[in-house]
């Protein structure tokens, strides 16, 4: 099967899982969430196979163009989602995570992003490309989970109903977001900042150059440092935390898309 057939199959499965999740919000059936978890794992396996086929045939990392990077971010989000569902169940949050996955995959498949394999410019021919990009995107996937949980937190804060379990659910969303940050933040630090600095010092002879992409990774990272420390100060939980986690992820998205399309620099390869 070709990489695109596999990808399409994975996409359809994710869509199905999302739809089942939303329907199940009303029903709340255990079996449905179990079945959809296995389905999701199957979709993830197909998606992984698709990436593998592309990697083998192009003989380069599967994240060197915008299409590939968005697709890989989607794949990472699926991984993060599966792990978090497995660990924390997330009956009510899961469909929104799948919504994000489906949105990313739809974006990847948009005709605006060319799908063909482009050969690598000299600076990108390094094993650091693998380490730097994959770990960064994996970290961002967990930060995406925090993003979704934080949005849900704010939305559920809006309609402050007298529902009995509403405060319990909010606390849980806050907790999920925090746990996701504690996975995403170290990965992002390692991938974006540490591997980024080491690679830059190997390729260009300087580990930091205040290039727009570097600055925006730093901004993203500082937002999460802010997230962690505002939580240490009494009272900064919930709403404010959620807002920072959302801003942090928007900064990550801007690093990903905005810098390439709006700001120029050494890093604008894709």
């Amino acid at each position, binding site marked *: 099967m070709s990489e695109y057939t596999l990808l399409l199959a994975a996409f359809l499965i994710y869509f199905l899982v999302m739809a089942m999740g939303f329907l199940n919000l009303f029903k709340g059936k255990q079996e449905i969430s179990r079945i959809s978890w296995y389905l999701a794992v199957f979709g993830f396996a197909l998606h992984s196979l698709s990436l593998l086929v592309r990697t083998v045939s192009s003989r380069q990392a599967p994240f060197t163009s915008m299409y590939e990077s968005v697709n890989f971010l989607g794949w990472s989000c699926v991984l993060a989602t599966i792990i978090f569902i497995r660990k924390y169940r997330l009956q009510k949050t899961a469909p929104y995570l799948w919504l994000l996955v489906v949105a990313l995959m739809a974006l990847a498949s948009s005709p605006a992003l060319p799908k063909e394999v482009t050969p690598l410019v000299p600076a990108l021919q390094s094993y650091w490309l693998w380490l730097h990009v994959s770990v960064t995107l994996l970290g961002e996937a967990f930060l995406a989970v925090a993003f979704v949980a934080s949005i849900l937190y704010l939305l559920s804060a809006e309609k402050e109903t007298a529902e009995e379990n509403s405060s319990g659910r909010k606390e849980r969303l806050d907790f999920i977001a925090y746990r996701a940050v504690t996975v995403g933040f170290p990965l992002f630090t390692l991938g974006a900042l540490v591997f980024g*600095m080491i690679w830059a010092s190997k390729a260009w002879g300087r580990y930091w150059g*205040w290039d727009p992409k570097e600055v925006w990774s730093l901004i993203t990272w*500082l937002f999460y440092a802010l997230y962690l420390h505002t939580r240490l100060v009494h009272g900064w939980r919930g709403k404010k935390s959620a807002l920072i986690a959302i801003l942090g992820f928007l900064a990550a998205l801007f690093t990903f898309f905005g810098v390439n399309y709006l700001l120029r620099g050494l890093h604008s390869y894709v």
Partner: protein
Amino acid sequence: MLTGVWYFLTSIRLAIVLLILIILLSIAGSLIPQEQEPEFYQKYLPKISGLILFLEFHHLYRSPLFLSLVFLFLLNLLFCSLKQLPAKFRRLKTTTGDHPPGRMYKLSTEDSLKIDKWLNREILSLESVLRKKGFRTKTIEESGQKFFLARKGIPGLFGPELVHLGLIIIIMAGLISALFSQRITLAFLEGQTEEIPGKNFALRLDRFTTEYYPDGQVKSWISEVSVIENGQVKLQKTIRVNHPLKFGGLSFFQMGYGQDWDRASVELQVKLSEEKNIKIDIRTGESLTFEEGYRIRILSFVPDFQLEASGRVETRSTEPLNPAALVEITHHSEQVFLGWVFARQPERKDLHKRTRAEVEVRLVNFSAPTFSVLEASSDPGTGPVRAGCILMLLGLLTSFYLPFREIRIKQQAGSLPELYFYSRKQAESFQEELAVLLGLNKKTSKG
């Protein structure tokens, strides 16, 4: 006064304010083009150019404002960590008597009896339950009191300090780099030798190759170089992008390539008459006799021809997008042809000042010597940055994944035991763990 300053510098609120300010300034720095001439800002950002130049936001990351914020942040990090440390060490040292802050686990009578039994008759089983979970345990008896202590994740207690220390090192390394790093750009033609400024060796480019993909994109630049010391070849090496040469405290990076268009060679087709059509290879600046009485000279070559409004010829870029040569032909010192000929527009004749109608010149081919662009750099901050990164990562791992946990049981002779527990964060979830671990009721109050 001094305590006020100390309080200010160690407060986490200052850290939050500084983080926000640094984020805002960095955003500004990414939006305002950096390192341009003042005129640039007056031209393109007339409304705010005054402010930009006053605040030195045209090189924001080395502006006094930004640097003082970073410096304040550095102090904040340092003092804040120093402030945390004594309490943490005290916690580790204290084993008996007044216990450091923690929570009291409010035990039901039933639970108290259970723990009493463990503590006094089945201490081994209490220890083994906790040890299985990775705790280290200790029992101390002192003046009629009994203390039982169980701990794990001691690195996690110091995780934040490791992260902060790593960051302090990274920021200081950045300062060292800013002050002491050196960079020189070097351009080499094949065969060229250059003395390296400030060093007692020279570098010679032996061979330079550019490899292309089938679609014409550059695949790699390969510079084969020799290091020459005292006239001797000391070392030979191939430099590519991502594969620098390290020698004599410097690293040499392949940055790209360029073409020396002032020394371009051209191939021309010169038609003097219907029968006489002659092919000529010649270099820019050279002149040569090619036919009885005829001399040809290439006065100039540009890779990307552009005619300015003033009538001056310029090159728009260094890429051969519209290559053109200015050719002069004389016959017994009489000018018979003068004009620009274009490789891509052979029919273009508007810039010909021709004296003889039958003479025609075509630019068939061109090439220019390519030079390799290398950059030599030394940066004493690189090592410290890596060390700082490692500390920071270790700190993050221990902070989040080896959380510090402590259980203290205290018993006065003749009374029931009291249980205290502490975790750096998330005391609630630790409490739940504990309840499961020891099989207790889940009731507590703050202590």
